[in-house]
């Protein structure tokens, strides 16, 4: 972390960048927040640790409109989002100085709490274990167990776009990315419906999934339009409850980089990645393997046309 701060100070001092976009230490052991830093003094509260899951790519949409360059710290998966945003002309590469930071998996406080740990006073790490002191006694949980879902199916530790790299990464991928989708595909239509009904009935339409999503970068979302019957604020019935998610999943299909932010932020723990991965799996099967955000140039299969493309009828055939 000291290396990141040092490099940021240098770039600020010599005027290469006007500001730094990183994470600032929180007031609990697990709540750092995305933040801008403009001088060395402010950088004192900079932090890069296991709880810096927040993907800073989307903030670069706004930062691209500011005077001067913004130094942004991106984890390997975050760089896919940045590429995708570049492809969509939503961020300006010229306005960004990207430092790719090493990553050994990011932590999910919800996963820690799910294991029954409450009243957290401090969290430290020893040999792959998180030692957690609480008001109700000491606990430990393995680093891997406390990781975000997305880190278990990490795309790899290679940064897809950067100006310089700092820090080491460690492999975290220990699960099959499409396993959850395959499980659902095996269900009967009734079971599928019941499964999603149960999950989506929890949705409070808070829009955290949408607003955090780098693929959801429309200037005005259709769900914010008061000319549209289904305005953002509530699910008037169980159909609308699903419609929001279906529309969103379709709209990010082929553009979603599987950055995992939607599932990270959902206050109701809805496994939103399952929707997106279903589309990814289908795209892979119908058009050949494709990863949104691998680069900023390749046309996505859904925004391109070739004579070999699957015919729409394939949907009816597959049922």
């Amino acid at each position: 972390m000291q290396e990141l701060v040092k490099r940021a100070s240098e770039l600020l001092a010599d005027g290469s960048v006007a500001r730094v976009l990183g994470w600032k230490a929180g007031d609990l052991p697990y709540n750092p927040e995305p933040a801008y830093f403009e001088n060395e003094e402010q950088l004192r509260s900079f932090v890069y640790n296991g709880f810096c899951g927040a993907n800073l790519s989307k903030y670069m949409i706004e930062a691209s409109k500011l005077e001067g360059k913004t130094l942004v710290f991106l984890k390997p998966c975050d760089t896919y989002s940045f590429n995708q945003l570049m492809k969509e002309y939503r961020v300006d590469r010229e306005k960004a100085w990207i430092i790719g930071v090493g990553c050994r998996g990011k932590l999910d406080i919800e996963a820690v709490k799910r294991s029954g740990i409450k009243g957290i006073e401090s969290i430290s790490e020893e040999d792959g274990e998180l030692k957690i002191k609480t008001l109700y006694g000491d606990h430990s949980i393995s680093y891997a167990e406390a990781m975000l879902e997305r880190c278990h199916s990490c795309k790899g530790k290679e940064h897809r776009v950067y100006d310089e790299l700092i820090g080491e990464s460690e492999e975290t991928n220990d699960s099959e990315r499409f396993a959850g989708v395959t499980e659902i595909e095996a269900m009967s239509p009734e079971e599928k419906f019941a499964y999603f009904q149960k999950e989506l009935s929890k949705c409070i339409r808070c829009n955290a999934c949408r607003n955090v999503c780098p693929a959801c970068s429309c200037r005005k979302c259709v769900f914010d339009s008061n000319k549209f019957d289904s305005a953002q604020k509530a699910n008037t019935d169980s159909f609308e409850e699903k419609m929001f998610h279906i529309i969103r999943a379709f709209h990010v299909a082929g553009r979603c980089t599987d950055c995992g932010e939607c599932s990270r932020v959902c206050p109701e723990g809805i496994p939103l990645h399952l929707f997106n991965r279903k589309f990814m799996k289908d795209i892979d099967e119908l058009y050949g393997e494709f990863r949104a955000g691998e680069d900023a140039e390749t046309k996505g299969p859904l925004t391109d046309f070739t004579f070999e493309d699957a015919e729409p009828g394939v949907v009816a055939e597959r049922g």
Partner: protein
Amino acid sequence: MYKIKTENLTALFQKIAGHQELYLPVRNAGQVNYANWSDEAEVDLNVLNTVKSPKDAFFPQSENLYTCKRDGKKITIEPEQLKSQNFVIFGMRSCDLKGVEVLDKVFLEDPLDTFYAARRDHGTIVAMACNEPEETCFCKAFGIDAAEPNADVATWMAGAELYWEPLTEKGEALTEMVRELLDDGSEEAVEEMKTNIRRIIAKLPYSDLSMDGWNGEVLDEKFNSELWDELYKPCLACGTCTFVCPTCQCYDIKDYDTGNGVQRYRCWDSCMYSDFTMMAHGNNRTNQMQRFRQRFMHKLVYFPANNDGMYSCVGCGRCVAKCPSSLNIVKVVKAFQNQGGEQ
């Protein structure tokens, strides 16, 4: 003081549900929220904060107000019926109870909100003391006592027993209804619990949070502070904080096209949204800094100014736990504190 063995709680719920609707914390797909009791419901009384606050019981996220139907040239208007059946809400915590007091200030004063008032009239609240407060709790900062939930019935979970004390007429009536399931309990056990809870509360990381400097008098000073320009920046404008909050009270009224008429409904609104308080001339808050500022100014300045100093935050900590960017009201209060009152 009465008590009931926890193994008999299901019988208690069955008994209540036999007479009235019963809402309580239920685990569904991994998350605990208030829901109707049923035999299959997986009741979870250990979770301190449900994801959504229990305010839905009185002020639902969306509710119909009236329905217009068109049949040829005939248009009929059917007002929505007010709540007319008694119900019980079980398991509310002290912070959420105070949240209802906040909502009362808004909805029970002139002009009276009849939908809300009907639910308040018909609801009996059974509250629970908080055995194991979380690090995110700061009810103490608002003078709320987690050990002494002041509802129609107060309860304390002590090992294998739930202590039960009716505090109001409604509480007495409910106690009468389930009397055969209750035994007499001693005050001592409960006093011990209270001491224990207060001891833990004193040790919480936010327990010394001070609200000094926040009141109805500081409008200009706080409103014009340059700090907001920094504080709002990571905010995604998602509205999660407002939707999980027990005291957020703003709503919007909308029409739903049913194909042969209109359903006029109201639903929670959020000051974090771009069309919040949209008027014919446009919107009086034009950027996210202003929307972000509204949330905290409302809770800590405007509300106390209009309600004899009562804050409209109760320290439940839900926004602390749920904000995707880890922002929250505590960080805002601390930021102003650290700045040493210069502004």
